[in-house]
């Protein structure tokens, strides 16, 4: 998943410094800082209304920031919009292709707007249709396209000009799982070619699949940022949900697991379950041993990928926890081995 940063020598393709955008009382974006190094993929993760779209729109010069600065490909969003626009591609949250035109006509038009010659635009359009598996639908109007085909055409349109920085605003929201995989595959191909991508999403799974680094935002503010692997070390790669058969055991169970070094363990009284972020398979077998040792009757036990809610809970919860649990920064191996020692 994580790619080497060979290209660009670690220069920043996107630099955001204290960006602010308010709509009346709504602080859509409220002092965001972030860097995207050239040739890497930044995932911006946040729930609905977090300010993702507003952030992307400002970076694409569609909206002026109230304050703060941002540069994309070295150009300032407020002062140098024209050269900036030449170097970006945007796939908005809502389809940004012309419904009444065919796939080919859409791409051809964009080629001409990007100053391709007539034959150049035609050639590039067919190239992109081929690449995004749309050759068969080239002359069909977009109205007849499926959701996944539209998204792919949107990606093709954004890639027409071979942009230095590609912005993808929630590329798979509202798609069914199979179509989502299709879009992921194509996005991953773009990513694999070493393009710089800023991607917004509501799904941890999507960020994990596509991004190198993550910026988690909520209410327009950055809550956490870092490499996916590091964040996962704090959040857990999987969540283990344990439902004791006897509800009164819940608090005791959480106490025991916390005692054995699983600081992220949270009791959900309403659901009657304990949720444990799992970093390694060894942890899982360790927990099973602990459960066996105390001989709790268990009604249900299951693992799943962390949801956005759980990521938020773990990230914001950990902030206070890590202060009593010693200095942070032990990393996933540290956390894993620490736990093994505890249960051994």
């Amino acid at each position, binding site marked *: 998943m994580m790619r080497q940063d060979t290209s660009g020598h670690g220069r920043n393709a996107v630099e955001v410094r204290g960006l602010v955008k308010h709509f009346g009382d709504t602080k859509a974006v409220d002092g965001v800082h972030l860097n995207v190094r050239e040739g890497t993929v930044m995932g911006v993760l946040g729930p609905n209304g977090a300010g993702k779209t507003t952030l992307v729109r400002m970076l694409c010069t569609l909206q002026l920031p109230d304050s703060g600065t941002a540069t994309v490909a070295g150009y300032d969003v407020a002062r140098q919009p*024209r*050269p900036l626009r030449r170097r970006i591609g945007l796939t908005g949250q809502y389809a940004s292709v012309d419904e009444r035109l065919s796939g080919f006509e859409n791409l051809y038009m964009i080629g*001409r707007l990007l100053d391709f010659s007539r034959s150049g635009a035609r050639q590039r359009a067919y190239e992109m249709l081929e690449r995004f598996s749309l050759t068969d639908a080239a002359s069909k109007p977009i109205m007849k396209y499926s959701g996944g085909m539209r998204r792919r055409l949107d990606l093709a349109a954004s890639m027409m000009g071979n942009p230095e920085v590609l912005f993808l605003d929630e590329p798979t929201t509202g798609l069914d799982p199979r179509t989502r995989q299709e879009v992921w595959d194509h996005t991953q191909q773009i990513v694999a070619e070493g393009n710089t991508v800023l991607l917004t999403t509501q799904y941890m799974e999507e960020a994990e699949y596509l991004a190198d680094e993550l910026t988690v935002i909520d209410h327009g503010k950055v809550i956490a940022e870092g490499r996916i692997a590091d964040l996962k070390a704090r959040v857990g790669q999987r969540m283990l949900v344990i439902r004791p058969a006897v509800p009164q055991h819940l608090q005791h169970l959480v106490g025991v697991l916390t005692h054995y070094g699983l600081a992220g363990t949270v009791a959900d009284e309403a659901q009657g379950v304990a949720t444990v972020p799992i970093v390694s398979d060894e942890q899982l077998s360790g927990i099973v041993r602990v459960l066996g040792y105390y001989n709790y009757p268990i009604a249900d036990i299951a693992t799943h990928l962390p949801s956005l809610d759980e990521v938020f809970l773990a990230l914001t919860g950990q902030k206070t926890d890590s202060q009593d649990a010693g200095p942070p920064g032990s990393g996933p191996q540290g956390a894993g081995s620490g736990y093994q020692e505890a249960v051994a």
Partner: protein
Amino acid sequence: MTTPTMAPQTPTTAAPQRSRARGNDGGRIGLRANLRHTGALARRNAVQIKQHPELMMDSLMIPIVFTLLFVYVFGGAMGGGSPESASENRDAYTNYLVPGIMAMMSLTMAMSVGTGINEDSRKGIMDRFRAMPIARASVLVAKCLVEMCRLLLSLVVLVIVGFLVGMDIEGRWMELGAAMGLTLFFGTSLLWVFMLMGLTMRTAQAVQGVSFLVTTPLQFGSSVFVPTDTMPAWMETFTKFNPLTHVADANRALTMGTGEVANPVMWAVIWSVGIIAVIMPLAIVRFRKRT
């Protein structure tokens, strides 16, 4: 291995500034590029029409329906004539009416651009255009070009229908061409009025409602359908300030060869130039700033 850091964060010292020796590429957009962009965007509108011919219904049907209705419903009764002279009256009215409907078409066709641009500007495709290295005005100019073609087509249809129901211009073809050109020019100025409305108002329904309220009095409170001298004084005064009256009178003076030509033509041109000079920049600024 770096550790994830928690917000709020102090900005890391900015990475060494990339030296950008890129000259002024992507800065100003040259005339040729502007024309190419406008052409590509106009082509988009044209292809839309090709694939959805029903988009042309109004420019074809309105001139036919209005001409037939007015000629055959009112034509015979015009001039207070008796039933015996109905046919003559009808021919005379046809000569009077068709140049008037030309003026009306400029308003009717321009009206539809307001709702169109309002709907268009809320779709994702506009964001794509606005995030591209093109002059934003070219989106509006392309729309304007295509709408001018639609208006021209509807004027041609109107004149053909006019001839079919008995209009007689006594060989004044040059004058007919001049009248169409004048109408096209005035219609173009109106396009910008409705584009500004479409860009300013929130919903397409609001645009449609206001357009209807504004255009109906302008259409009927003018010399488009009947001469103004039988109207009460206040109404006649209104018609004198109504640019549609000037355009209709100018068209008539040209195609019928009666009445003064210079004065109504001058007023029609003054109105058109004035509207373009004031409204077009406003619409373009509005479009640029729209978020």
